[in-house]
């Protein structure tokens, strides 16, 4: 555990920041991902293909382009960025929140797909049964659908978290590489790979990143196992 001690303050900061960014990205993208998954799985409307395409965009485009688009939209001068900054004081540019936004966007298609897959597997007869017992649509969702799609939600969250740990293309393009603010682990790793002889440093940080993700994975597996035990199809 030698290398642990040799973690510089800056690197340590990057670790903490990565955790924060990945967690926030994962949690904040959950509600919209749920909504999008629900709409895509259940909705029947004209623009569904468009929405579906939109959701997948961050996957299809090189991360640099996604970062560029984020910059255009959410930057200080971007229409959404300016609006949010003026009305709610939410600023993304050069902030860790921006890194979280970038990671959330990059992980969004992964989360939506997982959740959608689970929603499509839900036996709608159970939802019908809940309705006959007096549960309105929102309650049916809360008390039946949501618990049943938990495995998909967990899978989606894990994918999003892992993606956030590894994301750097969109992040660095959108919010650059500011130590302590936007320099996540993977941005730091990238920086190491860009200088001759930086491999050792990159490797050290990569190991940390992997350990964190493994821990998250393991947690999710335990959680999923518990959930699975609870909800074997009757």
């Amino acid at each position, binding site marked *: 555990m030698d290398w642990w001690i040799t973690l510089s303050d800056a690197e340590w900061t990057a670790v903490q920041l990565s955790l924060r960014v990945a967690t926030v990205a994962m949690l904040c993208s959950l509600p919209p991902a749920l909504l999008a998954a629900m709409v895509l799985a259940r909705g029947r409307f004209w623009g569904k293909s468009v929405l579906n395409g939109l959701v997948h965009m961050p996957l299809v485009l090189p991360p640099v382009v996604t970062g560029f688009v984020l910059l255009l939209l959410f930057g200080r001068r971007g229409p959404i960025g300016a609006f949010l900054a003026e009305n709610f004081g939410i600023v993304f540019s050069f902030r860790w929140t921006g890194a979280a936004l970038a990671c959330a966007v990059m992980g969004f298609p992964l989360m939506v797909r997982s959740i959608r897959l689970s929603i499509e597997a839900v036996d709608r*007869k159970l939802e*019908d049964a809940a309705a*006959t*017992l*007096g*549960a309105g649509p929102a309650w049916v969702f809360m008390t039946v659908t949501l618990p*049943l799609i938990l495995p998909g939600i967990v899978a989606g969250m894990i994918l999003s978290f892992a993606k956030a740990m590894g994301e750097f293309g969109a992040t660095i393009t959108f919010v650059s590489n500011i130590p302590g603010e936007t320099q996540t682990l993977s941005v730091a790793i990238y920086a190491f790979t860009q200088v001759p002889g930086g491999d050792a440093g990159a490797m050290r940080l990569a190991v940390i990143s992997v350990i964190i993700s493994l821990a998250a994975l393991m947690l999710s597996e335990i959680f999923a196992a518990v959930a699975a035990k609870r909800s*074997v*199809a009757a």
Partner: protein
Amino acid sequence: MSLEVEARHRIGAFTIDAAFTSDGSVTALFGRSGSGKTSLINIIAGLLRPDVGRIVLDGDVIADSRKRIFTPIHRRRFGYVFQEPRLFPHLSVRGNLAFGRWFSGAGKSASEFGRIVEMLGIGHLLDRRPSTLSGGERQRVAVGRALLASPRLLLMDEPLAALDEARKAEILPYLERLRDETRIPIVYVSHSVAEVARLAERVIVIENGRVLASGDAAAILSQPAAVHAMDWREAGALLEGVVESHDSTHNLTIVRAGECLVRVPQLFAPLGHSVRLHIAARDVMLATARPEGISALNVFEGTVIDLSPDEKGSFDVRLRCGGNVILARITALSREALELAPGKSIHAIVKTVALNHT
């Protein structure tokens, strides 16, 4: 306590086109497999939205496709026991039972919960997951779940099919009490004439999506033509009567139906209480003279009204006995031997134990 249903709907090659009204508190739906019973119940529950349809419960228009009225499923408060259990796999048995209570406002009291759980014999299962239950246990939980949701109408699709007779014998009286005390109307699908005879006031016979016959249970159950969809062996007459007296030394109850006094196994109903007796045609023996020294306690004098056509060597004979119509099924040979013909006076003999419905 009146239900009006009208529905026209196509699903694939199957067309349902049925209309019936029922003012009985229990309406039985009878019909062969695939005749459209479940579809009809789904339409009442709102799970299936018919092309054309109208549901009125006690003057309250629940749905009317012409007027574009459609009460959402969850606002109907129709308890539905599905043909398959449909328990929530992520909830314990307790959670499943309590599910309806979360939404029905007040809900049933704790004592009612205990009563239903005990009646269904699922007290030891409360903390289990549905996936660990046996088939019959699931079905019982499903019944409990619907009962505990404080429904204003109960829809039951073969609720007792997977249960043993002993368990049925515990649940049926509960449903009877429900019918008589809380007066919650029930729409009941079953293939068992015994169950239907016991519970239902109105019977609707469905065939191929259409109403083949509908009317009073007594009338329908004694119409051999209408009971094709049911257990032919169980066809018979339904008598309306009142409790006349109890003979507790012999565990008997005497019921007056018209002018007949019928001895039945003891009923736990107060004097004067009205009861219904199903006398299966196969259980009625005919004799030209009053027989002596026999074990059967019920011998009614009557006259032959008519005889049904020969069906595989047996005839259903309709008799008028003291204001009641009784059905007797006899062989062609007996018919010849007894020289049965309309107008002939005859004795109908019914064993008391044959009238045991529990």
